[in-house]
C-alpha cells in the first residue's frame, strides 16, 4: 500500500494561532470588528439602544431582509440596484388592492416578476447587471408613482397593519420573525442546497461553472428571483407597519443593505462571502442607525455616517488594499537615483 502524501498545511498551534486562522479564513472578519466597535461605543454613549432592543431588532430586520436577498445576487458577481423600487412598488400594489390577502400575494408576485425581468436582461440579453437593474430602479419607481398617483396610498385594512406591528413571540414582532426565517432559508440554501452552493461557482469562476455543466443562466435567474422576492417582502412589511405605502420608500434601505452586505465580507466581484456576514453587517448598521436616531442625530447626518461606512468598506476590501499598497510600495521603493558612473 503506497503512502499517502501529506501536502496540506500543518495546523496552527495554540489557541491564538487557531483563532488567528479562523479570523483570517472567514470573510466576516471586518464585519465582526465593526460590530464590536459599534457595540462598545454604543454601550458607553447610548445604552438605551441595547436596552430598548425591540427597536434595534426591528431596524436590523428591515435592513437585513433586503441585504440578504442582495447577497444572493452579489455572490454570483452581479448587482441588483432595483431592490428599493421593488420594495416601493410592491407596497403600493398591495395597498391599492382592497383585499388584504390578495394584495399581499400580488405584491410578492411583483417581486418575482421583477426578478425574472432582471434575470432576462442579465442572462439572456447579456447586459451588465448594474445597468439593467439601474434602469429597472428608475422604471419601477415610475410605475410606483403611476399606480399610487404620486401620493402615499393608505392601507384599507388598517387593523391588520397595526396588529402586524405588535410583538408575536416574546418581544419579537412579525417583522423580526420573518427576517429570521428569511435568514435561515437563504443560509440553508447557500450552504446546503446544491443550486445555492453553485452560486459561488457562478461568481467565483464562471468559466469553470460552464465547463462543469452548471446551468449558469438558471442560477442567475434564481438569484434575481430571490432578491426580487425578499424586496417585495420588505415592501409588504413596510406597508403593513406604517399602514400606508409610499412610492418613494426604500432609498435609505438601498444604501444600508449594500453597506451591510459589503461589510459582511461579500466581494462585489462575486464568489466569496457569507450570509452570516450579511447578518453581522445588518446588525452593525441597524444598531448604528438606531443609536444615531436616539441620540437625536438628524436623518441627513445618519446618511453621512452610513455613506462613509459604505465608502470605507468598499475601498478596504483586500483587492483594493493590495492595489493601494502595491502603488505605495512602488512609489517609495526609492526614487530613481541618478549617479554618474
Amino acid at each position: 500500500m503506497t503512502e499517502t502524501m501529506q501536502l496540506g498545511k500543518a495546523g496552527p498551534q495554540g489557541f491564538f494561532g487557531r483563532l488567528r486562522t479562523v479570523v483570517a479564513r472567514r470573510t466576516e472578519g471586518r464585519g465582526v470588528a465593526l460590530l464590536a466597535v459599534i457595540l462598545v461605543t454604543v454601550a458607553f454613549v447610548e445604552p438605551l439602544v441595547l436596552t430598548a432592543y425591540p427597536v434595534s431588532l426591528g431596524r436590523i430586520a428591515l435592513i437585513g431582509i433586503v441585504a440578504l436577498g442582495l447577497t444572493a445576487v452579489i455572490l454570483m458577481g452581479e448587482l441588483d440596484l432595483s431592490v428599493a423600487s421593488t420594495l416601493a412598488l410592491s407596497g403600493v400594489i398591495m395597498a391599492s388592492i382592497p383585499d388584504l390577502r390578495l394584495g399581499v400575494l400580488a405584491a410578492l408576485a411583483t417581486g418575482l416578476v421583477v426578478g425574472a425581468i432582471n434575470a432576462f436582461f442579465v442572462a439572456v440579453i447579456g447586459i451588465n447587471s448594474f445597468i439593467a437593474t439601474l434602469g429597472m430602479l428608475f422604471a419601477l419607481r415610475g410605475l410606483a408613482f403611476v399606480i399610487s398617483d404620486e401620493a402615499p396610498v393608505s392601507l384599507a385594512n388598517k387593523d391588520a397593519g397595526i396588529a402586524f406591528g405588535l410583538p408575536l413571540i416574546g418581544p419579537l414582532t412579525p417583522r423580526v420573525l420573518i427576517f429570521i426565517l428569511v435568514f435561515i432559508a437563504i443560509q440553508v440554501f447557500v450552504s446546503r442546497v446544491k443550486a445555492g452552493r453553485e452560486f459561488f461557482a457562478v461568481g467565483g469562476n464562471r468559466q469553470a461553472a460552464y465547463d462543469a455543466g452548471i446551468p449558469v443562466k438558471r442560477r442567475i435567474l434564481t438569484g434575481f428571483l430571490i432578491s426580487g422576492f425578499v424586496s417585495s417582502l420588505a415592501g409588504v412589511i413596510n406597508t403593513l407597519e406604517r399602514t400606508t405605502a409610499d412610492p418613494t420608500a426604500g432609498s435609505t434601505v438601498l444604501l444600508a443593505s449594500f453597506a451591510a452586505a459589503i461589510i459582511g465580507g461579500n466581494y462585489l466581484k462575486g464568489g466569496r462571502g457569507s450570509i452570516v456576514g450579511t447578518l453581522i453587517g445588518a446588525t452593525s448598521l441597524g444598531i448604528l442607525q438606531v443609536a444615531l436616531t436616539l441620540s437625536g442625530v438628524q436623518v441627513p447626518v445618519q446618511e453621512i455616517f452610513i455613506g462613509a461606512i459604505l465608502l470605507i468598506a468598499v475601498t478596504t476590501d483586500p483587492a483594493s488594499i493590495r492595489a493601494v499598497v502595491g502603488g505605495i510600495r512602488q512609489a517609495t521603493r526609492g526614487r530613481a537615483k541618478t549617479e554618474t558612473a
Partner: protein
Amino acid sequence: MTTMAAEPIIEARNIVKRFGGALAVDGVSVSVRPGEIHAVVGENGAGKSTLMRVLAGIIEQDSGDVVVGGNVLASSAKASIEAGISLVHQELSLVPEMTVAENILLGSAPTAVGFTKQKEMKAIAADALKEIGVSVDLDERISRLSVALRQFVEIARAVARKPKVLILDEPTATLTPAETDYLLEMLQRLAQGGMAIVYISHRIPEVFRICHSVSILRDGQLVHAGSIADTTPDKVVDMMVGRELKADLQTHRTSSPGDVVLKASGIRAPGVNGIDLEVRAGEIVGLGGLVGAGRTELVRAIIGADDRQSGTVTLTVNGKTRALTSYQSSVRAGVGYVPEERRTDGLALGMTVFENINLPNRRELSTAGFQLPGKIMQFAQSLSEKVGLRPPEIKREAGQYSGGNQQKIVIAKWLGRRPSFMVLDEPTRGVDVGAKAEIHKLVKELADQGTAVLVVSSDLPELLELSDVIHVVRDGQIMGTLAQKDADEKAVMSLASGEKMVNA
C-alpha cells in the same frame, strides 16, 4: 511491464483542425490502449493542446473521428465525459471559495430533493483522493491551498468520474521535483489499474520515466509514433525540433556589444528564484526555456510590471546609472516592453494605429497637453512604414490588422521612444511567416542602433536566429548560458527540459 490489452480504448483518426486559415492539426492519428501511458510531445504550437481538446470534445474537428471503445464520438464535452474521457486542463478550473470536496464534484454533486448529500459527496471525493494517493482536508477551501495541491485536486476531479481515459496537459509545469515524483508514481499506479493515460509534456526525462509510448507532433503533423523502448531522448528531441535548418534564416549578426546597460541582480519573485542578468548595448540576449519556466515572470519583475520580492535592477545610459523601481519610472527612463499577450496588454484594439503609437509617445507629440495632430500623424506614418505595416493605413483600427501586423504596431510604438533597453516577450507568436522575418529584422536593427535587447521566446529557431547569448531558464533559475557559436536547438532543449547535454 504489465501486459496491456491489444485493442485501443481511444483512437483519434486523421484529425484535421484549422483556425482561420492556419492548420493547427494536420491529419494526426493517435491510439492508446487501456493501461498504457502515452506521451504526446512537441513544441509550442505543434498542435498538442488542440488535439487534446478535440479528444475531450471541447472543440470540434474539421474532419476525422474520435473513437472510444469502438464507437465514434459526437463532438461535445458532455459526450466525451460520458464516454469516459477526462481532461485535466492546463489552467485550473476550480472555484476558489468552494471546498475541495465540492470542487471535485463540481456540477455533479449528489443531491436529495436539491440538498447536497454531504456524506455521499465527501465519500466520493475521499475515494478519488485516495485513488491518487493525496491527503487533503476535504472541507478546506481551494483558495487556501498551494498551487501544487490545487493541481492534485484538479486531477482528483478528473479521476472521480472514473474515466477510462485520462488526459493531462503539462501537469508538472508548476510542481517541485518532489511533487512531480509523486505525480508520476500516481499515474503509473492508475495505469496499472487499467486506465489509459495521455501525457502531454515537453519534459523528456518524465516522458522516458513513465511512458510506454510516444507520439511526436511537429507543425501540426505526426512525425513519429512508437514505443518508448525503441527510441532515446536524444532522438525524440531531434524529431521534435526537426532538422530543417533553413540556411537563409540563419543570418547571424556580428555584434560588438558595448557597455552593460541593464544589470539585474538577485531577482526573486513568484516563479523567479534568484536570477542575475546583464544586457549590453547592442546585444540581444535570449531567454529560452519551457512554458512555465518563469521567463515572463522574470522580465516583468525586472521592468517593474510585477512586484519583486527582492533584487535590484539598474539601467545605465550615457554614463548615468539609475535604479529601476516602478514600471512607470522604467518606461520614462527608456525601457520598452512588448508583452506576451498583445491583444490584451500590448494594444488597444479598438483604437486606431496612430492612437496606439501615440500612447507612449504622447508627451513628445503634444504641447501643453494639447495634441499636435499633424505631428502625431507624421510620426505614426513614418514608424508604420519603417516596421512594414501592411497596408500602412494609420487611421485603421488596430483590431482589423492581422496578428503579424498588430505586433508590428506594438514594436512601432516603442521604437518611437528610442528605448535604451527593450524587452520582447514571444515577439512572433501567432504571426505569419512573412511578418516573422520582418520582425526579426527589426529587432536586429534595433540592437544595431545600440539598444540592449532582451527576448523571451519558445520558438527555438527564432531564439537562435536573434540571440547573441542565450540563457536557458528552468524552474525560475538559469540552467545554463550558451554563446551564439555553441547554441543549437538541441542544446537549448536539453537544458530546458532537464535532460543533460548530450554533446559535451
